[in-house]
């Protein structure tokens, strides 16, 4: 039997039921997931995705480095790696230029039904208070 280095209580990232789960972590790998009983949502139950669908976290093709390319025909690979500093500088500079030339409503933001409340709050605040547009939506309808 494997003993976890740590067990972290969290919320399942799949559907909207919000099952409470424990991530069992050993050597920085999630090797097991179990349902928690101490809540009003899943009473220890989990579906097949909530039990066995976490390998994506450790997938070899996770994005690990900001990437920028000047030509869209160029594929993203190691040659497009850049620093956070230069990637965010570029985004800020381009957004500023596009807003100045075409107005704030020429920029649109897609927030995410996968991201946290805090992140959704912050991105719509950026769109509305910093850029000045209400072009904010996500795939709630899909």
């Amino acid at each position, binding site marked *: 039997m494997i003993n976890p280095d740590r067990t972290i209580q969290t919320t399942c990232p799949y*559907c*909207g039921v919000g099952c409470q789960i424990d991530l069992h972590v050993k050597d920085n790998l999630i090797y097991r997931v179990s349902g928690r009983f101490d809540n009003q949502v899943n009473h220890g139950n989990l579906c097949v995705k909530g039990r066995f669908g976490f390998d994506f976290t450790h*997938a070899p093709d996770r994005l690990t480095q*900001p990437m920028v390319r000047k030509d869209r025909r160029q594929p993203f690979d190691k040659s497009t790696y850049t620093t956070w500093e230069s990637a*965010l500088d570029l985004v800020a500079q381009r957004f500023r230029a596009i807003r100045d030339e075409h107005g*704030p409503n020429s920029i649109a933001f897609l927030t995410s039904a996968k*991201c946290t*409340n*805090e992140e959704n709050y912050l991105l719509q605040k*950026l769109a509305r208070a910093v850029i000045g547009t209400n072009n904010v939506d996500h795939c709630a309808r899909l």
Partner: protein
Amino acid sequence: MTDSIVNIKHADVLFVIGSNTTEAHPVISLEMKKAVRKYRAKLILLDPREIELADFAFMHLRQRPGTDVAVLNAIAHVIIRDSLANLSFIEERTEGFEKFAESVKEWTPERAEAISGVPAQQIVDSAYLYAHASNAMIFWAMGITQHTTGTENVMACSNLALLAGQIGRPSTGLNPLRGQNNVQGACDMGGLPNVYPGYQPVADEIARAKFASGWGVEYDELSPKPGLTVTEITQGILEGRVKAVFVMGENPMLSDPNLSHVKDAFDNLDFLVCQDIFLNETGEHADVILPAAGFAEKAGTYTNTERRVQLIRPALDPPGEARADWAIILDLANRLGANWHYDGAADIFKEMATLTPSYAGMSHERLEHGGLQWPCPTPEHLGTPVLHIGKFTRGLGLFKVLDYRPPAELPDEEYPFLLSTGRILYHWHGGTMTRRSPGLDTIAPEAEAEIHPADAARLGISTGDLVRVFSRRGSVVAAARITRRSSPGMVFMTFHYAEAAVNLLTIDAVDPIAKIPEYKVCAVNIELLTQLTDKEFSHESESTRAVA
């Protein structure tokens, strides 16, 4: 949901409409099964397909896709005609009843049968069951919302709840099942073009003044003009009005309808930024990719389908230089001239709660002890398991007069099959997460098209054969699965497989109010592929080739 998951087992009647609960919300389906088997609840299922829940149903009404309003109007007709309506509830808590009653007079069960294919007697029986129940819950999911009449379908459910007084008590109400972990929260947080957090309209002067002062900007800096929805953004790009898009954790180039159209649009952009954990189909068209931390690598909260706000906690370090989405947005905002300071997710939540009345009593500190259901207006408030007790948000519940409108594109001679899209148990949404989890992908490795045995026999198709499914907009190849789950004349496919992206086929006709695309109905044709030609090879994925 206006009610709570924990109350499902105490309902007498569960009316499930357009929700394949056992596959899309499996843990909620366990509560439904418990209600049926252990507590003797009666389940009425209104669904075109013979899904697993049909085995637990007292009655299964199999309507033709897109005819929900006809069936629900006829149920309302019977409830009024046979004096089953809850008149004291209607008197005390609703308005618009007379007009509504007049409008459903012509909606006899026989008329609805002619349109929907649901036998008139089943319509009568379900009206009696629903109205007579001590406590009845209505559930729905994308099966009724992803139609050009999506808003009307939901209003038709609401009419029934008002008519029978099945709302405002535990184990009753209107219970949409949200498909994504935080779609409720993303809406609550103002991830919509017309509202600030807490559904405070951007066009409302008081809300605008409140957010201007809360965010430390001038009143004039906030626009009172509602923005564009996802489908309107695509159109805006094609018309040259939208020049740049920032995408956080979404994949419109797989999840939007009529994908070729979306691809043309995104290729037209001056500047596209994608922030995600994987390089997805949309990212392939981006200028800048920002690597984000996944759910197990950061702190924050999700809001579930019953409005329960729950914590997520970091268990791992993000890979490489990936960072939490909030930290990236913070850095970007400050580069754009803002002066924001946040210590972490808890700090952001604190600011949000001061501006969002339904979250005002919550904090990460409180949530450490368990989730809370909004509205939770004060730090002492225990949260709200059941909405609309005693009073509706708008005051009186409003009956809506609804007319039946057929779907935008129905089968014809050229495209004789009706395509409906949805999910299966083993995969989730665009497949980004589940297709990278071998335990799941091994079970369901390739796209399938569900075809009825009668159609299959006529076309000489057997299970496992490769078929081309094509519409006016595009074409995909999938393995045939011959089953009686779908009716004759109907094809069912999922949107989990990028290599057989079903949204190449779907139509971008939308509901005029909610702007939701009609994923549940479009016209297609199918043909058996005897052998893939070289040209077709170049379009298909590894997995499809392996099967060929």
